[in-house]
């Protein structure tokens, strides 16, 4: 009993306590002095049990290491094994992991991209790299028209139509058709194309790859559509020019001496070049590299090109090959690339426009709209439909079984995307 007593004394904070050996006494005293009771038991009540449970070795087997391990380990162990802790642990770990992944794969890349793009537009960089794209004297190419302006009478009205009324005029811009004439006709039905009020614009690559290139050109001519020169028109028209120079438009006997015809792609270009009539080829030849549509509310200055444009460079300073083939851009020099070795040009373009024109949005919305440029383009079927604030990508891969896309612009500059499904003409 003495050992128990000693234990008791040690554990309580009470120092002047004289025990008579009775088990009941402390509890009695507690009842008499409640303020003291609170302080007295600093450990779980079970520890204060004074029967053989604590002292007899026959009970100690159930918790053999309890007395050996330090107190804090016991505490930690008890916390970890608690079901509530486990629950929280799972919740917090998941939360932490999702934060980490979100940072690693979403937030951090976006921040990095933002810094990269902002840095690439810093005028100090121009000095550092020795100059930006667009300073060279643009070369002229025979029979390639760099720029045309769309007749302003074809534009939709500035004001949006009153509710319930139809738009007075519409622009229908169509992405890469690639000879899919059936799909083009279906698309025009889908947008309820009306020759009297609507104007059709093609974003290049009307021809090649698909089943009926001449048919597409005829359809475009029938509706007196506008167009821009795509990389496929560029190739086929150049081959045709060469055929004309060699007087080999119908005569195929000299083909084996022609250069650059080893690939099947070049053979297809050659066949199509011969299949086009003079009228069809002349119509395609008249398609400019850049079509300046003019000003449209909510879009600003609108340009239609096949590949893309570099922001901050005048239309007549944009290299034609790059305009027709652009996929990415070098952030240091702003030189566009026909491969995907740089940053997507659309990201760069949108960042440039928003940096230059968005800041003044609150001050003068109208002025902002006139200054900003919106580009409607095709060419990038891999990215497919890609509608951003200042860039509208319309090539949704019709010829390879994707969709044919039209961007319909109505009065007041409202835009709507309309698509039809296409057959896959590349699968044999």
């Amino acid at each position, binding site marked *: 009993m003495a050992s128990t007593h000693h234990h008791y004394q040690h554990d309580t904070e009470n120092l002047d306590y004289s025990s008579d050996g009775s088990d009941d006494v402390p509890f009695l005293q507690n009842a008499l002095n409640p303020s003291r009771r609170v302080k007295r038991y600093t450990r779980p009540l079970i520890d204060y049990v004074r029967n053989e449970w604590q002292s007899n070795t026959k009970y100690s087997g159930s918790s053999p290491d309890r007395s050996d391990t330090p107190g804090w380990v016991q505490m930690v162990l008890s916390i970890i094994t608690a079901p509530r802790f486990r629950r929280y642990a799972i919740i917090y770990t998941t939360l932490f992991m999702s934060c980490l992944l979100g940072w690693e794969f979403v937030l951090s890349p976006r921040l990095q991209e933002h810094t990269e793009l902002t840095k690439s537009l810093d005028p100090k960089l121009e000095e550092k*790299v*020795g*100059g*930006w*794209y667009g*300073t*060279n*004297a643009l*070369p*002229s*190419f*025979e*029979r390639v028209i760099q720029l045309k302006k769309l007749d302003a009478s074809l534009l939709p009205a500035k004001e949006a139509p009153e509710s319930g009324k139809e738009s007075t005029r519409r622009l229908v811009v169509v992405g890469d058709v690639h000879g899919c004439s059936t799909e083009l006709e279906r698309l025009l039905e889908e947008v309820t194309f009306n020759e009297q009020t609507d104007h059709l614009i093609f974003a290049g690559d009307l021809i090649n790859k698909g089943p009926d290139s001449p048919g597409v050109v005829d359809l475009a001519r029938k509706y007196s559509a506008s167009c821009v020169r795509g990389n496929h028109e560029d*190739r086929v028209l*150049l*081959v045709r*020019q*060469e055929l004309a120079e060699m007087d080999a438009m119908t005569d195929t006997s000299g083909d*084996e*001496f022609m*250069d*650059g*015809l*080893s*690939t*099947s*792609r*070049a053979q297809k*270009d050659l066949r199509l070049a011969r299949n086009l009539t003079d009228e069809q080829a002349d119509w395609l030849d008249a398609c400019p590299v850049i079509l300046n549509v003019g000003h449209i509310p909510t879009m600003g200055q609108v340009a239609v090109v096949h590949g893309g444009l570099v922001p901050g460079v005048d239309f007549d300073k944009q*290299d034609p*090959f*790059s305009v027709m*083939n652009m996929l990415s851009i*070098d952030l*240091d*020099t*702003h*030189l*566009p*690339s*026909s*491969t995907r070795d740089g940053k997507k040009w659309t990201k760069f373009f949108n960042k440039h426009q928003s940096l230059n024109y968005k800041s003044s949005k609150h001050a003068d919305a109208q002025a902002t709209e006139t200054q900003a440029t919106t580009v409607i383009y095709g060419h990038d079927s891999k990215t497919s439909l890609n509608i951003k604030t200042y860039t509208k990508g319309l090539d949704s891969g019709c010829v390879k079984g994707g969709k044919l896309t039209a961007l319909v612009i109505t009065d007041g500059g409202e835009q709507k995307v309309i698509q039809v499904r296409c057959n896959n003409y590349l699968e044999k």
Partner: protein
Amino acid sequence: MWFPTAWLLIALYGLSLAAVGSSAVDVDFMSVRPTVAKEYSGKGGEPGPKYFKESDFHYHYDGRFADQELSDDETIPHLSELIRTYLSTMADLGAETWIMHGTLLAWWWNQKIFPWDNDLDVQISEPTIHFLADYYNMTEHHFEIPGVEGGRTYLLEINPNYVIRSTDDKLNVIDARWVDTSSGLFIDITAVRKDDERREQGDPGALMCKDGHRFDETEIFPLRNSYFEGVPVKIPFEYVRLLKKEYGSKSMTATTFQGHHFNDVTEVWDKQRKRQFWRRQPVDVPVRTTPLGPLFR
């Protein structure tokens, strides 16, 4: 290899034997067949001794026609006439040619020769080199040139080793020359050939030059029609891509090159003067003939 027909044809086409005979090069079947572009025997040929010689005073002059370099002021007008006469001659002959390398880069900037350049690079296709070798080797072409009394005579000379289709023929990577016989300046002409090795590996458009440059047909063909030094010129289809591959992005954007600055208003490369910040422009300064003493230098 010495077929009697070959001899007969050589004589008929007036091929200069002096160019071939003294060298150890075997005149093979290819050189006497004007129509066949490819060598069907499949052999690349053995490397030959160096055919084109450069002068001992400068590697861009032909020592047979000059004993000294031109001054800087004279070089560019000579080069300009050199490329103009070359391009118009090739157009007249119906021989397809296009500009490449440094000349293509100069075209990108302002369609004129770089003021610091002293060479020009053009390419032709394999059928064309055969055609030129068979019919126009060692032909002289005389041109009236405004401001040049008597005009100038240019020589088209084909390297007889052009029939060797291997990059191992390291001393004969230039297939032909267009030489200004008045100054010794010349244009290097390289033939772009089908790269049989890569084509066998499943690359149907592979092209190569003996100087080791490799291309794809889609990069060069179809050729574009543009202008260089005021005359029509053919440009490879994917010129931006080719220039980027060879010289990097900055070559098409950086406005300072070789001590010259591109003036974006006049679109001409201006020579950068040293210490231009404090020195006044020399306007109509009288010419001194007595030397200044060292104190006043």
